[in-house]
């Protein structure tokens, strides 16, 4: 087995060593593939580990770096920092010639004939695509247990969920299988698993990253974003994938800030930037139902910001309590239409059922899992004649009010809002499967950000009972560079904290003969629900 030490490096450290010639992309890629192949039995984070494609991309990256080095330092500097760095993709990002299941049986066997925009951008940057990561079916879920390909485990505790829906992406990054992964966030699906796995996850402003080639869940809410182990790495990945794409009419012609490539390396310099910053504490995000350990860690983080010179102000986002209800109208409504194309006629899972209707019922009935069916029914109902005004239209009005809450807070001079990402730490596999509403509540603090189309980031802020807690920073539209700078500043402030040096115990406890997450889930209380 190759030396796995390099898997502990941050992507920006890999970039420096690749340019210095002290490591090759091939070596990095071999190490990460070995880690993923060894760890996947216990985690089930990967649906595909594409060794051949990854090694080919690594060889190409090494050639590019060698050519650039021969051309001089300017050419070397012109390479994207991600050239030669391994990246994982949530299995709803298309890669030409590869599978794209979106975690669903209904896309079993489907081979995408084109690259997603983010795939193209990663290839342009020279990144090494290592494979496809597990997820809740069609990104509907908060635990990655709603995958047709089995649940993913949390590297911090193999009997717990990694969060979701980008649980495979979060687990793979936390377990050092890759330094970076692409996720999507419709109601918290990047930030919440990042929080539960102790890593950084950023949901960009709606329109920042093209959705072309991303299997749609809810078109007006979906955004593509980075998962990484630190703010600088998240910024590099966002830089690679952001920007206008004519194939997505909702992608905005907003320039990608070059500051993303220049977050401070020095902890002290980063921390110093907090002086004079005004951070808002939305009181509606600290509510009953939040685990005390989570609230304590978030309050610690707020105190650390304040100690570093930031001003903390109380703010109110009065319509927050309606967010969950509005979200569970809008997202299922859009999903009910977005998923209508999976009919067994052109591609994917198809079951003959006599006539046309019978074939639809058979294909969709056996192709979709229970959570997807639940949401299709919710959305279909909400859009039905006679209910549209009471549900969909009202939810859109609530959405406008929620957006107005944020606008008011930012207009009052707040640079960003500080809140918990998830009210809970990672819970045991199966614990919330029988109670969809309990599962939905884990996104209560993240989904208002999607409804408002704003950027939000989750950064680790310590542990509660040995499990990671996430701190969420929310900013005005297009403020990703600012949010990442704040996240970087918080890393600087807490650089000396003992929890910063902790790693998921699963990294050293992985037993290749042990149970898979699916076997563990069955053995746990509540496991009969699967």
């Amino acid at each position, binding site marked *: 087995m190759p030396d796995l030490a390099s898997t502990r490096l941050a992507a920006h450290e890999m970039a420096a060593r690749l340019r210095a010639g002290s490591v090759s992309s091939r070596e990095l890629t071999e190490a990460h593939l070995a880690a993923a192949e060894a760890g996947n039995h216990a985690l089930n984070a990967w649906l595909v580990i594409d060794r051949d494609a990854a090694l080919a991309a690594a060889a190409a990256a090494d050639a590019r770096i060698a050519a650039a080095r021969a051309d001089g330092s300017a050419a070397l500097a012109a390479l994207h920092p991600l050239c030669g760095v391994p990246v994982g993709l949530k299995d*709803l*990002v*298309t890669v030409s010639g590869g599978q*794209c299941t*979106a975690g669903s049986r209904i*896309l079993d066997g*489907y081979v*995408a*004939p*084109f690259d*997603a925009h983010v795939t193209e951008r990663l290839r342009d940057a020279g990144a090494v695509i290592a494979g496809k990561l597990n997820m809740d079916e069609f990104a509907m879920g908060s635990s990655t247990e709603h995958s047709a390909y089995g649940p993913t485990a949390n590297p911090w505790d193999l009997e717990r969920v990694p969060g979701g829906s980008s649980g495979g992406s979060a687990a793979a990054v936390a377990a050092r299988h890759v330094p970076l992964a692409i996720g999507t966030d419709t109601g918290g699906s990047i930030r919440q698993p990042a929080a539960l796995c102790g890593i950084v996850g950023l949901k960009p402003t709606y329109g920042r990253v093209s*959705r*072309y*080639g*991303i*299997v*749609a869940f*809810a*078109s*007006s809410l979906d955004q593509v974003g980075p998962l990484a182990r630190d703010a600088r790495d998240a910024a590099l990945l966002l830089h690679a994938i952001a920007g206008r794409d*004519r*194939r*997505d*009419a*909702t992608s905005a012609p907003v320039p990608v800030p070059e500051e993303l490539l220049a977050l401070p390396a020095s902890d002290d310099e980063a921390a110093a930037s907090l002086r004079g910053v005004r951070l808002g504490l939305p009181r509606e995000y600290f509510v009953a139902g939040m685990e005390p350990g989570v609230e304590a860690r978030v309050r610690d983080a707020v105190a650390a910001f304040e100690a570093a010179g930031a001003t903390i102000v109380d703010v109110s986002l009065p319509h927050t309590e309606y967010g969950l209800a509005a979200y569970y109208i809008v997202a299922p*409504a*859009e999903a*009910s*239409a977005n*998923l*209508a*194309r999976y*009919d067994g*006629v*052109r*591609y994917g899972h198809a079951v003959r059922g006599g006539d*046309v209707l019978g074939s*639809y019922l058979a294909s969709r009935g056996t192709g979709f899992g229970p959570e997807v069916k639940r949401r299709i029914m919710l959305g*279909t109902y909400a*859009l*039905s*004649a006679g209910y*549209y005004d009471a549900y*969909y239209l009202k939810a859109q009005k609530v959405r406008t009010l929620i957006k107005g809450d944020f606008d008011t807070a930012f207009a009052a001079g707040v640079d960003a809002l500080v809140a918990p990402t998830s009210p809970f730490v990672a819970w045991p596999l199966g614990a919330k499967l029988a109670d969809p509403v309990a599962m939905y509540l884990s996104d209560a603090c993240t989904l208002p950000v999607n409804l408002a189309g704003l950027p939000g980031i989750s950064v680790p802020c310590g542990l509660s009972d040995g499990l990671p807690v996430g701190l969420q920073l929310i900013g005005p539209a297009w403020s990703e560079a600012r949010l990442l700078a704040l996240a970087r500043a918080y890393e600087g402030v807490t650089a000396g904290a003992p929890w910063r040096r902790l790693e998921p115990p699963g990294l050293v406890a992985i037993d290749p003969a042990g149970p898979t997450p699916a076997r563990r889930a069955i053995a746990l209380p509540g496991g009969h629900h699967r």
Partner: protein
Amino acid sequence: MSAPAARAAALERYEAVIGIEVHCQVRTASKMFCACAVPPPDAAPNTHTCPVCLALPGTLPTINRAAVEHVLTTGLAIGASVPPATRWDRKNYFYPDLPKGYQISQYDLPLAANGSLTVETSEGPVTIGITRAHLEEDTAKLIHAAAPDGRRVSLVDFNRAGVPLMEIVTEPDVRSAEQARRYAEELRLLLRAIDVSDAEMENGQLRVEANVSLRPRGTGPFGTRVEVKNMNSIRAVERAIDFEIERQAAALDGGEPLRQETRGWDDAAGATYVMRVKESSDDYRYFPEPDLPPLVIDAAWLAALRAALPELPAARRARYRALGLPAYDAAVLVNDEGMRVAFEAILAAGPGLPPKEVANLVTGDYGRALNETAERTASGLAGRADAASLAHVLGEVVAGRLSRANAKEVVAEHVVGGRPAAAVIAERGFAQISDADAVGRIVDAVLAANPAAVADVRAGRSQALGFLVGQAMKASRGQANAAVVQAAVRERLGRGGDG
């Protein structure tokens, strides 16, 4: 009772209430939401598709601006109002010809609303309100076939999926099959005049559907509505609606309840048949299309489209009437682009020519030449014709220097060969002698040479007059103006204009 008589009887008791829905393929190079070329009618199946119009996972629509402009132009041409901003909506239903499981259409904010079109009918002009015109995408085509093993299979050709369609819906203002036909004809003419569609029904570029119901004359509420489809020509529109009026009247007379249903027109059988019975109203669960931002239609854009509008058919007909053309001629010229172009060009080349004479030439001699060649000049004239020559021919006829019979030959020869008309007239010796003195000399010689005939005329046998005129024409080798010859013979033999 004959069919027209039965219909007339039915229409004495019942009033037909008809709404027309037209789907028109607007002329664009690419499809509505993707970069695929719009397929020609004879394209092999599934040769004009891409991930977007096949609705592969992860694909997104982008708007074809030209298609939007065509609908806006149509809206301006029918006097409709255009909203300052519009959006797209998803119309949800499952069918194998609908790859996304929804059609991107427009629900409550169409690109054009509240327009109208006035048509001439045998009962005078009728104005038909147009509720809306909006843009949507076409579906794929299902082909039912037998597999090699004999099983019946349905194949899907996605070539047409995503082709831009404009839907134009009228108010229930149409009261007869004739009005419906005239509306379809006038709309087709308008769409071609403003250059937004080829509007060929045989190629499916223009599809007409009619909602037909009857109500007893003098009553308010509409009767049960029947939707009639599959009318593949304008003539079929008229026949199908006439059939429906008779069928529904017979059912009502017989106390039979009518069902709300969709019926197809069978042109060979000359009858409609049941396609689908509507048991409940369809619920398409429309909602705003989240993949496409709202479309802002700013005043400058609209003003530019308005400035680019050509003269519309109705205005053109009015102008031709004002030039003194009968309604029939005006309609013929406006309906035929080739004749219209020639009419305008000849009038421009010969501003002094009487417009009615120009119209006669264009619809007569020139019209025949136009039909005999597919060749067109750069300015759209038949064969190798030029407007100056055509104007010259007509000028000579009007001045009496060219006979109408010879004019026909000159026009035909000029159109084919392109030689100037004056040269053709000279070479063919068609210059007509109308000068009274010159004609008089020929007539004098003929009278001197035919004393017997002269005596017959004087004795009251008038057939001999025709003989003498014929001899004079022959002596002039056909070049003399026949009317002048006749006048000269009569004058010399003392017979006035009493014949």
